[in-house]
């Protein structure tokens, strides 16, 4: 089936099988390898992207469902290589180690900060519940998001 999406401002048209998951479409067909696959049950959130303004896990959507949609991925956050305040805060607060969960984590935090510019600790934790990190224990991630909020 023909699928046309706009990802980070660029429009892509591809012919895909209906069974292809959005995350594989992004990674394998569009070479946007920032979104990662960390599980096969929709739990880990490493594949999180923003689809038409809504935070979703791209492993629980078919690529064909995104036809006509506008997608934001981690690759689109820093314009011209200039890190966003959130990305800078992640660096400053050591909110990443291996970096595998980081793209999804950043998308979830970005979605949160759009809705709530100064979230509390509890609000941050609630917003990041769908993103598993096995390296940091989340404490520094919460600190980083809080630092941007303030």
């Amino acid at each position, binding site marked *: 089936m023909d699928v046309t999406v706009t990802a980070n401002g660029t429009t892509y048209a591809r012919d895909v099988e*209906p*069974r292809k998951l959005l995350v594989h479409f992004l990674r394998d067909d569009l070479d946007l390898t920032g979104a990662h696959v960390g599980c096969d049950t929709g739990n880990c959130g490493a594949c999180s992207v923003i689809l038409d303004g*809504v935070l*979703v896990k791209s492993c*629980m959507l078919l690529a*064909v469902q995104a036809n006509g949609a506008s997608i934001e991925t981690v690759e689109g956050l820093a314009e011209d290589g200039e890190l966003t305040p959130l990305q800078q805060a992640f660096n400053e607060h050591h909110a990443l180690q291996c970096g595998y969960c980081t793209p999804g984590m950043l998308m979830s935090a970005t979605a949160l900060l759009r809705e709530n510019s100064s979230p509390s600790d509890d609000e941050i934790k609630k917003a990041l519940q769908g993103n598993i990190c096995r390296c940091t224990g989340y404490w520094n991630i919460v600190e980083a998001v809080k630092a941007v909020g303030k």
Partner: protein
Amino acid sequence: MLLREVEYAKPGSIAEALELLAANEGARALAGGQTLINVMKARAASPDMLVDLNGLEELRGIELAGDGTLTIGAMTTYSELMRSAEAKARPILGEVCATIADVQVRNRGTIGGNVCSNDPTNHLPPLMVAVRARMTIAGAGVGSTEAAGSGGVGSAGAGAGIHEREVPAEEFFLGVYLTAVGPGELLTRISIPAGRKDGFAAVTLGTDGTCICNAAASVNGAVRVALGCVDAVPVLVTADSPGAVADAVRAAGLQPPSDVHASSEYRTHLAAVLATRAAEEAAAR
């Protein structure tokens, strides 16, 4: 992670969706997909065709009638329900939805999908039973009433041979992943009568995680508690007062499944504790 081959259809109306479902034996409706896609990834299920209900605006939305009855479109997401001013008329709905999975799942997952999956660990089946929800099912075939075509939430539109029937929640759930929604049918909306005295209690796998056992309660004179995770369908227990709930649960003769998270015995114990807590919370409102 890798699905079997599947056809994909995106109908433009409920009528078209029903037509597709009726015409293709192996077709499944795709709502939020937050369970179905995962089951398909495991290849534990592989429908021949997915009929994507996303985009059917008539299945979305929440209306509050003058008598306090809430009508919720089946494709309303948890996030929409949590944000809805109308849904605050029955506060428990938003409160429970806020504890389902995570933001991403709540953004896609729908209330209709939740009840239609009827996974024994889901939150909403027991809650729907406790609050006496009524499910409207539309089908192209013979039904009890011709669709009204009022244009309201979940309305299938006038004529076109669409019939609707209404099923109370306690008759809706028939088994794991099995409900009263038959072949060629769709759940279109859920209506919930007015009320505020509700409660919900669960022991979960991690904070706000998958339920190991849960209970939803509603007090309207008598106490009505529906238990989840203890059988293929929610188990309804009634009592005169919250204090009598635990005994009523014990008298229900539950034989919950054992699994890696809880033995049958532990679930039976939790059922009585959680039912009481939910009932107390409901009574205290």
